[in-house]
Every structure is written in structure tokens, then in C-alpha cells.
């Protein structure tokens, strides 16, 4: 079984983003960038499947700016076998990414695509589902467990109020949720080794995909701020305030 893992380079989850003064977007100048945390979980899962003998090869792919090569190196340091960078502008829309991925799937013929359930920058939560739709493959989103069965996979997924398990025929698309695993850290020797692993660079245009945006940003604003409230002296006073002032209990 060959696994394709699409990953995205995003603002590190510990960075507090600032909206640009002119409201045109978020200021990314000099901001620390990392692999999208949910994609890290997807990479880890693919590597574990290979380590268990359920998969033979893990190929990571990123659609984005040239620096996404660093993110792909990180994934290879974790254990992915090789990487493909499809160069495009920063943060293309999920539909365009799904079309690029479809073209790569046609070329690479993986049996399984695992990716994060959403990127923590645009929070779209869409690329996996869109790719599955375009390929007419079955999908299991928000996965907390993946098991290889005879000729397919069983995926436990997080739904409102609990979890459900689906059986999917392969090939399939799975999106990773937080509980799927805890990603490993890349060791120094593995970081060195990753530098020698193959990384192929393509242009989005080479794949014949129209990357045009369907959504135009009208404006980006700070969310309405919260003001610090009051400190209260005792639990009894707090209960009184919650009952009579805030009226939430």
C-alpha cells in the first residue's frame, strides 16, 4: 500500500497573528512557520502504517511557496520516503489544491491519501473531502483510528456526541483529527538523512490546474476584543454575579 500525505506550511500554532493595518490580510512578515499540526498527525500515521508493514511507501506533497520545501524536509525527517513540492502562490484555495492533488494521485497511484482535517490558517476543513469528491473515492474525515483490514481500511471518526467506525474500500481519503496519534519529533540523525531524500519540484501550471481564486477577500478584521472584567472576592459572590448580573446559571 502506497500512501500520499499532503501537508501545508502554516503560521506556527503558538504565534498570535496580527491583522494588517489596512485590513487586507494577516501580517506574515517574520512570523515563524511550521507544518500544520493536523498534517503532522497525518504524516505520523502514514509512517506508523509503514512501520507496521501495512504500507510500503510514504510520499509527502505540499502545494505552496518555495519555502514549503522546508516543511517537506521535516516530514521526511519524521520518516516519509520522498517529497513533491508543487509551487504556487501562498495558501491556495482548497478546491485548487484538491485539483492539484487529483493530478498527482493520477500520476502516483496511491492506495490511500491521509491529510490533516484542516489547516490552522484558513480553517477551511475542506481539502480532503473535495479531493475525495473529485476522485470519486470514499472518505473518512476526522479520523481517530485507522486500521488496515483484508482489502480495505476501518476508520473510527469523531462525530458530534461520540465516534463512529466506517469500513472503506481502497483507494480512499482519510483526514486526521487530534486523537489519531501523537507525532514524533525528528531526531538529529534523521534530520541529516532527510536532506538526502528525493524532493521533486513541479509548477502548478505543469499539472494543468487553474489556480484562480473563487473567493475575493473584501477585508480582514480583528475579532471584537474582550475587556478584562472584574475580580470577585469569593465563590459566593461569583455565584451571585453569574445568577443576577450575567444570568447564565
Amino acid at each position, binding site marked *: 500500500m502506497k500512501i500520499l500525505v499532503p501537508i501545508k506550511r502554516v*503560521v506556527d*500554532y503558538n504565534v*498570535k*497573528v496580527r491583522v494588517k493595518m489596512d485590513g487586507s490580510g*494577516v501580517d506574515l512578515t517574520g512570523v515563524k512557520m511550521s507544518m500544520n499540526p493536523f498534517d503532522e498527525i497525518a504524516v505520523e500515521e502514514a509512517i506508523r502504517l509503514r512501520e507496521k508493514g501495512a504500507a510500503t511507501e510514504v510520499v509527502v506533497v505540499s502545494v505552496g511557496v518555495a519555502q514549503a520545501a522546508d516543511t517537506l524536509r521535516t516530514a521526511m525527517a519524521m520518516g516519509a520516503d520522498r517529497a513533491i513540492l508543487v509551487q504556487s502562490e501562498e495558501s491556495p484555495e*482548497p*478546491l485548487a489544491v484538491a485539483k492539484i492533488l487529483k493530478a498527482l494521485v493520477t500520476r502516483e497511484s496511491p492506495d490511500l491519501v491521509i491529510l490533516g482535517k484542516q489547516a*490552522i*490558517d484558513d*480553517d477551511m*476543513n*475542506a481539502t480532503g*473531502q*473535495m*479531493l*475525495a*469528491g*473529485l476522485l*470519486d*473515492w*470514499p*472518505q*473518512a*474525515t*476526522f479520523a481517530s483510528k485507522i486500521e488496515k483490514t483484508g482489502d480495505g481500511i*476501518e476508520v473510527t471518526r469523531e*462525530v*458530534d456526541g*461520540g465516534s*463512529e*467506525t466506517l*469500513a*472503506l*474500500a481502497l483507494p*480512499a481519503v482519510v483526514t486526521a483529527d*487530534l*486523537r489519531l496519534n501523537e507525532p514524533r519529533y525528528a531526531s538529529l540523525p534523521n534530520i541529516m538523512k532527510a536532506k538526502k531524500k528525493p524532493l521533486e519540484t513541479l509548477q502548478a501550471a505543469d499539472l494543468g490546474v487553474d489556480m484562480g481564486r*473563487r*473567493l*475575493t*477577500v*473584501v*477585508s*480582514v*478584521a*480583528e*475579532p471584537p476584543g*474582550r475587556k*478584562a*472584567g*472584574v*475580580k470577585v472576592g*469569593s*465563590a*459566593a459572590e*461569583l*455565584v451571585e454575579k*453569574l445568577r443576577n448580573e450575567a444570568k*447564565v*446559571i
Partner: protein
Amino acid sequence: MTALVLLDAEGGSILQTSRSAIAAAARLGEIDALVIGSPDTIEAAAADAARIPGLRKVLTAASDAFAHSLAEPLAALIVSLAPSYDHIVAASTAIGKNALPRAAALLDVQIIPDVMEIVDAETFVRPIFAGNAIVTLRSSDAKKVLTIRTTNFDPAPAEGGSAPIESVAAPAHADTSRFVSEAHSESGRPQLETARIIVSGGRGMQSAEGFKILDPLADKLGAAIGASRVAVDSGFVPNDYQVGQTGKIVAPDLYIACGISGAIQHLAGMKDSKVIVAINKDEDAPIFQVADYGIVGDLFTVVPELEKALG
């Protein structure tokens, strides 16, 4: 303009989150509701949907394939109905988030998830960076596919309407996914995403044992229990308790943060709560900058006192 709104039903009744999606779609024009389910549950759900005021009609699609709202047949159904509609809408629930992007891709439309505000028929407001920025987007797609952040829209009433019910055929689809089993959370507590009150613990809980001090308070309030990333990473509670940018994004009426310092990644997941209470022994903790009410003190004293004070 006409919108198709996919409704979620449970035990024959339409969920409140779906009525919020209807309230949002009401700003777009006429509304047809779509109810799916297995042949033995569909009637009750359709009748419940028909009672929601303001619907032009309720479409029902009954099939065993819809019993568990699998994305593949559901997206195929939506695509088959799409030619009659300008907007396709669902609540941002597990079902909507699973099926609508798939349907959007099949329609060659870029989905717009988690809509907080509808400016006009093609302009929508949604959160990015876990709500740390709010973007207004204009869609150039011929059709718009949206999921609705339900906490931003007061639900449409459950009663008062009498929309006609019309059944539609489910299109054929490849049988490549199959429901195996389901498990409901065992805690007996509400789910984090839909809870009205959340009691949450952080590093200050000190241990898995310490974390249990929140149970009686949560029981008394009928609250869900959440945790910060540090509490999860320290092994106090399982991963699915995590509230934050990489965990669950919540917006309850009341959020009680106990021993949580207020890291950016946690604030991103809960700062849309209506009322925030912070209990922390460090009076300079950043959580107090977003809290409506704060108590500076040892949570191991304050939490039991609070539980008692609730009577």
C-alpha cells in the same frame, strides 16, 4: 433566490443547530429543507421539519444509505438537487462539514465554511486563524455552498409552520463505504461543542487525580469538561478534552477556566464564550484579561466552594 438547507435529525426531531442554519439562510431568500434518513425514521423527521415556519417545502430522501449520513451518497444527492438552487447550506456539524465540501467540489464550487454573518447573497463573514481574525469574502462561484457557525444565529422556531413534504429520489452511488458501528461518549456529560456550560482545567490541576476535582462542579452545572493543551499533554485527561486552536473551538454561555494561564492557543478556542470565569492563583495570568469574572486563589479551595455556593 432559493436556498437548499440540509437538516440534521436525531430520533425523529430536527436539531437546533439545523434551525440556526435555517435562520441564516432566511437572509438569502426562499428556503427548501432537505431531510435524509432511513425509510423507517424519515417520516417523523420530515413532519418535524415541516413545522418549522418559513419553509417553501420539505424534501425527503429515504434510503438505507442515508441512515448514517455517509458523505458519498449524501453529496451525490445534493449534487442531483443543486440545479434548482442558488445557495446550498448546512450547519457546521460533523455531517455538514463532512458532506458539503465533497458536494461543493463535485459542483466545482469553493465551499465557504463556518459562516458567521451573511452580508449579501455573495458576501460572507467567517473566522480564520481559529477566530483570531475575521475575513469577509466575496464568492465568484455561480452557486454558493456554505456551512453555518450556528452559535452566531438564533435558531428558527421549531413550531408554527406547515410546509408541504415532497419526496425525492436518491441517485445511485458507488458502494465503497459502509457504516460499521458507533459509540456515544460515556461521560454522560454534554458534548463540548454544544454544551451551554463548560468547566475547563489546565496546568494548575496538577495531576489526573487533581483534575477530578472538576467533576462535582460540572455535575452540578450540567456542564461539559474541557482542558488546555498542557493538561492534555501532561496526561491529566485524554486528547478529546482539548479546547484550543488545535483542539475544539467552543462558544458556550459560560466557560469556567480553572488553573488555565490563558496561552494564545487556548484562548483561540474559547474566547467567543458569552461569559468567561477564571480561577487562578497567579493574578497576572493572561486569562484574567479576557475573563468577565475572576477569582485569584487556589483552585483546590475555590472550586469546591463554588460547587457548594451553587446550592
